């Protein structure tokens, strides 16, 4: 291995069978210049301490598995170059999530929130096969495309101050996903989702701190989606006095 110096990794450890609370453990890792943070974690796991637990899969910022706090900031560790950091690098599990073990967080709550916004196409009337595929123009696609680039890495939840304060908050990724379907020209389920959006923990719980958009590794703008959803939600609410539910 080409040695490019040694860095000290301060890694959060938590064993649910032994530890009362998370603690930290230090590792000296000989790093290469082109390494990402994930490479160093894999080195620790393979060469220094096989008991370390962390999630990862694709190594190319697509799967969204390897989100962790690196020096206090939520980062995809496969996309975060080690050369951006000094001799001491702190790695911890994503903030705002219960910790299952070491760097692995409990994501059941996140999956439930995703499901709550009905992230699928809802059609008022099933189209007959003879009518052909449901086509979209590039302009119609452009209205929601950026929101469909989310990889569910949960960094936005780790950065969000409202998630830390409001346990019922659906959170940035889920609300942006719901908005993505509301903006989809093939979808007729916006009224159903607006009901969810204006409930407890919906879009109006968002304080527009914008931290979610700052940390997104895929340049999705969840805070923009949520603010737009607020406006559309109010319009949907006002429209419900004029047009009965189901009417369009």
């Amino acid at each position, binding site marked *: 291995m080409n040695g490019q110096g040694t860095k000290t990794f301060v890694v959060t450890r938590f064993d649910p069978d032994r530890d009362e609370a998370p603690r930290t453990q230090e590792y000296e890792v000989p790093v290469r210049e082109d390494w990402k943070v994930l490479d160093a974690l894999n080195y620790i796991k393979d060469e220094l301490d096989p008991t370390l637990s962390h999630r990862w899969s694709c190594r190319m910022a697509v799967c969204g598995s390897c989100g962790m706090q690196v020096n*206090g900031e939520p980062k995809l560790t496969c996309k975060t170059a080690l050369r951006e950091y000094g001799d001491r690098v702190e790695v911890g599990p994503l903030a705002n999530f219960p*910790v299952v073990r070491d760097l692995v967080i409990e994501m059941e709550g996140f999956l439930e929130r995703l499901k709550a916004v009905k992230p699928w196409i809802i059609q008022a009337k099933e189209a007959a096969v003879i009518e052909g595929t449901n086509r979209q123009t590039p302009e119609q696609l452009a209205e929601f495309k950026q929101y469909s680039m989310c990889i569910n890495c949960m960094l936005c939840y780790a950065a969000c101050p409202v998630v830390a304060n409001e346990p019922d908050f659906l959170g940035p990724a889920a609300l942006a996903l719901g908005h993505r379907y509301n903006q989809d020209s093939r979808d007729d389920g916006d009224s159903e989702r607006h009901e969810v959006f204006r409930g407890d923990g919906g879009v109006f719980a968002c304080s527009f701190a914008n931290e979610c958009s700052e940390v997104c590794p895929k340049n999705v703008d969840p805070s923009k989606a949520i603010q737009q959803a607020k406006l559309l939600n109010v319009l949907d609410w006002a429209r419900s006095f004029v047009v009965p539910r189901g009417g369009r």
Partner: protein
Amino acid sequence: MSLRARVDAMKGSAPPRTRTADPAPPRNFPFRGNYLPYVAFGSCGILLFAVGFGLLRLVWVLGDGDATRWKAIFESYRHPLYIVFHAFALVALTWFTFRFFRLFPKTQPPKLGPLPRPPDAVFLIGLGAAFTVSTLLVGLVLGGALP
């Protein structure tokens, strides 16, 4: 310095399969990034409420037609505390307005019903013009140039 996150942050509806550690808060929560400016922005609502209440009170007294009370109110405006409040409100609400106008284009979806959203430049120029004209009008009225 960090405050604690809620222990039930991002919890699922069913208990997890193993014991879990409590969530950690984001670093420097809640003093990091854009959080405090937003809190200040939201708090300006209280200021708007107070200023609105003052204006309503003024209109109420004007409607009564009692000149003595009207004069007494204007006399109270010379109190140092009121002048401090007025200066603070002026600075805070100007900041609030600028921030609101800066954020506003981002909050507009590409389409509202059948109407497409105008380009950002048109949006910002329109909002800027509305702000300038309304400020000028208020200035002219308060300055006595307009009845």
